[in-house]
């Protein structure tokens, strides 16, 4: 996976993407116990977000030039299917901007903060997201004050209350 991160960092250096952060299951793994996953979710933003549906084309072209081929909705980069997802709402944008830089062997990468991940999982709202939120709380990796602030700013406080009410039953 270190080689995969190196390619992602090179994409930033070469201006293909402005910034990225790891989200999804691999980001969750950073905070809780390992989860069986088969792909790496990369959220990114670009300087020019006006490209619409073609936003992925420059990325795919660039990666193809490096010999990494697209497979359905992912690109296989050094053995990991990577799914590139442009930030599509203010919460994701903030999560990418405020991601923490972490070392992986001799390479630095960026992982979304635990509180942003919980907020994104709450927003997405699938059963597996709720189960993962429970893991984050169980392992006490969430700063409750910071989470409350994020939820309030992104209009998710009511949804959070509802989830807690459901869990209390």
């Amino acid at each position, binding site marked *: *996976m270190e080689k995969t991160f190196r390619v992602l960092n090179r994409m930033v250096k070469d201006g293909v993407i402005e910034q990225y952060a790891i989200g999804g299951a*691999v980001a969750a*793994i*950073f*905070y*809780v*116990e*390992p*989860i*069986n*996953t*088969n792909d790496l979710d990369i959220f990114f933003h670009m300087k020019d977000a006006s490209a619409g549906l073609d936003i992925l084309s420059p990325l795919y072209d660039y990666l193809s030039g490096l010999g990494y081929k697209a497979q359905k909705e992912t690109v296989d980069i050094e053995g990991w299917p990577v799914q590139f997802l442009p930030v599509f709402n203010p919460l994701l944008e903030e999560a990418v901007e405020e991601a923490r830089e*972490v070392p*992986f*062997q001799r390479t630095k990468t960026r*992982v979304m903060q635990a509180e942003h991940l919980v907020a994104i999982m709450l927003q997405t709202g699938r059963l597996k997201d709720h189960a993962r939120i429970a893991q984050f709380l169980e*392992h006490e990796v969430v700063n409750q004050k910071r989470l409350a602030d994020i939820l309030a700013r992104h209009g998710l406080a009511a949804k959070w209350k509802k989830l807690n009410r459901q869990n209390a039953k």
Partner: protein
Amino acid sequence: MRNKKYPDVSELLKQKDQRRKRLALLSFEEKIAVVNKWRKLTRTIRDSQRATTPLTR
């Protein structure tokens, strides 16, 4: 049925919980190594299923 006795698994569940906590404390690299092992295992199982599944029309 009502009088049937079941074993006490509370200690097993406690150990399971402790294992999860231990896994959560591993470094990022160690956790990814665990995931890689699972991915290889999944691929092996999938390949063997493909090899043993009879062809259907």
